[in-house]
């Protein structure tokens, strides 16, 4: 059975029970998704898009949950992931057309889904580590603003580094390798990693800085060092989600990776509760459902019923949902906790 995990660093056994308990949700969601796609292949876009967003949401939660800092710059890492994976996976024959000016060591290379995802994660983590040294020194609000500046810088580089990114032109030719089993296996692994991190001492240090920076610093915890681990891990996960997104979209441009892209991810994590890993997945489920419903409303057709079509209602609804959740249930649907798997006999 399940019970709620205590918000502290756990013993090895406790961590494994917490990881197992949290993994149940993505596994269940993955099975439903797999059956859904098998029954209705036409809707695989929605289901895969959901899975990839859920990974990004878990990645975002790792940082926001541990540090309490709202980031508006995480799209930077999905962009890095997407472009790195794109450069690595476009078939060599096609590369001469898509990216004619690529240096030789990249032009003759072509990798599969898993390698591209791992390289993308590492690339995002490296960029995060460098940027983090500056960003994470700032107070919470100033850090949030600076993450936005990071995204603006990244977007400008994407638009101008034509040799690697095709600039503002569409980057195309990425093979469509994202499939349900891969995406949901990745989601499960991501959730397990995120819970393993949440129940670690490193995360506890970050939360100590989050809750009372002065007391934490007085106890010898470094502000930047404590925040750096969740920031880099979070960037790596987000980078991985970007690599998957590239292989789902197959064609994209820098426009895809700007502020608007962070809106659903931010709302998913707030909905689920910023301190909860499984909450991020729940938030992704809820928001995707709302999004699909609203898409039908915008098109004026809800399950065969004709309703007056209202453009822009999705964004308005997103804003309203965000504010209402913050007002009425700031800890999110999961109340900031995650489930832990325990044997029935162990509970007293």
């Amino acid at each position, binding site marked *: 059975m399940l019970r709620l995990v205590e918000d502290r660093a756990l013993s090895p056994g406790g961590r494994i029970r917490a990881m197992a308990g949290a993994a149940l949700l993505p596994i269940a969601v993955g099975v439903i998704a797999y059956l859904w796609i098998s029954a209705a292949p036409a809707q695989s876009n929605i289901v895969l898009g959901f899975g990839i967003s859920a990974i990004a949401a878990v990645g975002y939660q790792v940082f926001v949950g541990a540090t309490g800092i709202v980031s508006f710059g995480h799209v930077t890492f999905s962009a890095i992931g997407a472009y790195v994976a794109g450069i690595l996976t476009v078939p060599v024959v096609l590369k001469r057309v898509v990216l004619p000016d690529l240096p030789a060591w990249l032009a003759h290379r072509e990798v599969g889904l898993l390698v591209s995802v791992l390289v993308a994660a590492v690339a995002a983590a490296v960029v995060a580590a460098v940027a983090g040294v500056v960003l994470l020194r700032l*107070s919470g609000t100033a850090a949030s603003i600076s993450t936005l500046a990071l995204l603006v810088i990244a977007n400008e580089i994407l638009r101008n580094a034509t040799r690697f990114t095709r600039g503002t032109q569409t980057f195309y030719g990425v093979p469509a390798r994202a499939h349900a089993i891969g995406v949901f296996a990745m989601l499960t692994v991501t959730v397990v990693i995120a819970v393993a991190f949440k129940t670690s001492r490193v995360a506890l240090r970050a939360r100590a800085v989050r809750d009372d*920076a002065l007391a934490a610093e007085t106890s010898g915890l470094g502000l930047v060092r404590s925040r750096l681990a969740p920031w880099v891990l979070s960037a790596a996960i987000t980078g991985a989600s970007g690599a998957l997104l590239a292989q789902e979209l197959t064609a994209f441009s820098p426009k895809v990776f700007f502020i608007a892209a962070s809106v659903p991810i931010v709302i998913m994590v707030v909905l689920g509760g910023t301190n909860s890993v499984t909450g991020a997945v729940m938030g992704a489920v809820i928001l995707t459902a709302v999004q699909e419903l609203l898409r039908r409303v915008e098109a004026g057709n809800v399950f065969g019923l004709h309703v007056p079509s209202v453009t822009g209602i999705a964004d308005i609804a997103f804003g309203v949902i965000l504010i209402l959740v*913050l007002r009425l249930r700031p800890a999110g649907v999961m109340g900031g906790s995650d489930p832990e798997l325990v044997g029935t006999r162990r509970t007293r």
Partner: protein
Amino acid sequence: MTAIVQHLVDAVSTGSTYALLGLGLTLVFSVMNLVNFAYGMLIVWGGYALSTVTDAGAPYWVGALTLFAAVVALSWLMGVVAFRPFRHAPPATLLLTSFGVGLILQALASATFGDTPRLVLAPSVLGRTFRVGGVVVNVLQIVTVVAGGLVLSALHVLLHRTTLGLHIRASAEDPVTARLLGIRSERVLATVFVISGAVTAVVALLWLAKTGTVGPRTDLSPTLKAFIVVVIGGLGTIRGAVIGGLLLGAFESFLTAYLPSSWTNYQTSMVFVILMVLLLVRPQGIVGKTVELSK
């Protein structure tokens, strides 16, 4: 020499606009720790108010007055309806709330006025240029600097010479004690949103005269500039907004002038990177007193 004076003139006028942008944002931050993501939407909605009135054939000054009323009203409305219920919430929650408010205002603007940007006319006299010993200055630049000085003086008088100002400063310094001493913090909060709205209305006029267009997404540039200005200068201080604004203006003007042409595409990034390095040395901003750890 003339070239340097020219860049200085440009820097001061651009910097004045940025300083004003920072002022509108920092005023609200000082009393409720809110960095308003929806800030730029005030300029967008003001722009639509102005263009709607002038497109209907009314003279510019009527449009400008409409803009002023619209921006002040919207700022007050945002403050009272969306932000005041969150006044005891942590800054991260406030930031997210303002993100939601921005989203709603943007979607409404796009649904009402469409996605294509509109032209916003400004009096042609603002574009008139003249030379002073080789340095080219236009009327808008002078108006901007003068407006900056006037707004700053007015704010100074308001904050330091009136009872209302005393209440605002008290609430900013220590909200709990201010309440204990009988200051009606809710009313102070609403007033600050009105004052901030008035400052924003002035910037909106200058900003729109310079850019000449308004669209649902033209809020990003002013919001971002205002954000950077207050972080560089030090969050929540008037002096910080002024210094941060002038500094950002100076960096932009001098980079535009001296950056090698192969780098010009990366100008924004260069400015941000330089400012980030500055933050490495002073994380609290230039005039920020201490790092506000728990915020």
